[in-house]
């Protein structure tokens, strides 16, 4: 499986993270998104006319939407999709929500980091609205003794939403006011085989303090 990848992209990270969690090996092909804008080049658009990252290629299959890639990786591995009508529908709801996160918090991050021209106040405001909805939902889940977005265990809904939320501070949106979101992120970061991306550091407490060398 080949992933056309940019190391700082939250959407690419969703796919890298999902693959790591289900133990799927990816052949990463770095695309010079910045400063080269290689994803907008004619040769890259021969592969993906939309000129967006990530792109996942597995034999004849070519996917250009990160949520589709999550569905593919999860379905192949089993689990992660939410079981039953209610959970499956809720997973779809959060996948759509993750697009709002990308358009708000994700754009704020691209503005603050890589100079993307956007109405920064507007995207931050929209991002805060998203965080509040998420916080309220996760608070209710915790009342019921749950920590993930849908059902009792992690699903692709969590993986789709996690990156842009965890990276919100990169775009000038602090997470200080969202205790349930912080505990949810902690639960995801504690999953076996979790991998980081720049901006999301290692939970060093998961390992004991080292013995002196």
């Amino acid at each position, binding site marked *: 499986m080949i992933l056309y990848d*940019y*190391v*700082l992209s939250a959407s690419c990270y969703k796919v890298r993270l999902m693959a790591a969690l289900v133990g799927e090996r990816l052949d990463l092909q*770095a*695309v*010079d998104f*910045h*400063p*080269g804008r*290689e994803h907008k080049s004619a040769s890259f658009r021969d592969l993906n006319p939309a000129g967006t990252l990530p792109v996942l290629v597995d034999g004849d299959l070519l996917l250009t939407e990160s949520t589709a890639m999550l569905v593919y990786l999860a379905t192949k591995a089993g689990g992660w999709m939410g079981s039953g009508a209610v959970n499956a529908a809720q997973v779809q709801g959060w996948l759509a929500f993750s697009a709002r996160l990308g358009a708000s918090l994700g754009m704020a991050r691209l503005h*603050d*980091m*890589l*100079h993307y021209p956007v109405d920064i106040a507007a995207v931050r405001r929209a991002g805060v609205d998203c965080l509040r909805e998420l916080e309220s939902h996760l608070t209710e889940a915790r009342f019921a003794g749950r920590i993930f977005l849908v059902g009792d265990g992690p699903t692709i809904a969590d993986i789709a939403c996690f990156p842009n939320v965890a990276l919100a*501070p*990169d775009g*000038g949106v602090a997470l200080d006011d969202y205790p349930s979101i912080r505990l949810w992120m902690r639960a995801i970061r504690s999953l076996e085989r979790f991998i*980081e991306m*720049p*901006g999301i*550091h*290692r939970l*060093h407490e998961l*390992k004991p303090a*080292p*013995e*002196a*060398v």
Partner: protein
Amino acid sequence: MIPQAVLDEWYPVGMAAQVGPPPGRETMLLGQPITLFRDSAGIRVTGPDGDLAVTVAYGHVWACLGTPAHALFPIPEATQEGRRLVDCGVVRVKCSPLRAVENFLDIAHFPFVHTDILGAEPHTEVARYEVQIREDSDEVWATKVHFYQPQAAKSAEGGIVTEYMYRVPAPTASVLYKTCPARAGEWDVIGIFVQPLTEELCDVWPWMALFDDETPMADLIQFQQMIFLQDRSILENQIPRLLPLDPGMEIPTQADLTSVAYRRWLKRKGLTYGAQMVAA
């Protein structure tokens, strides 16, 4: 008031390859709006009072708002045969430009911030190294810096003890030399050129001159961007944002000798833009 010594220094303001025809690109330098563009005279940078002194070197455009006190510092390796020169683009950081440079000079954070790449517990010890302010070139130098690294470069396989040298040749630029995995006896060269937009906001332009004919360019760039973005969330969460030059404000140890020399050098030269002199 910005000290004259600050105005008379060179600062990076953009990648030379990205400068286009008028209207060009608007940016900022030391709080002043400036514009970069290319015309028949070459690359020009204009500010509120007209054209700025300009030098193009190491893939980047350098400008001076005052009267340049000296030529831009040399990086002899930039013209050494066999090296690949890599422009890594820009990353904006909400911190003092001086804090961005100081972080670049620091190795003790590798195991905690660049975990399993530039460092890993339990290999956290920073052995004694040598630091001097070289009077002839007026630069801060740290030499004989050694550190265990799980993956020192994109081309490195497995852990090695890497040797480093660091230099600060300009208030907001630093160049490091590190063990070259591909060619024994040579150094890979990595620079960070920091553009002070304001005292608490900067654009960081990493640049590299490497012996590595194998790794695709996009991988080289992304490796450097990955490392720098791991630092960014630290830099945006240091309090205060300005670099404290008051010795009572922060507590250095022997591992911080480079930073101690850098702060002393800044203070001595009056390069205090982005610094805080007294505890607030």
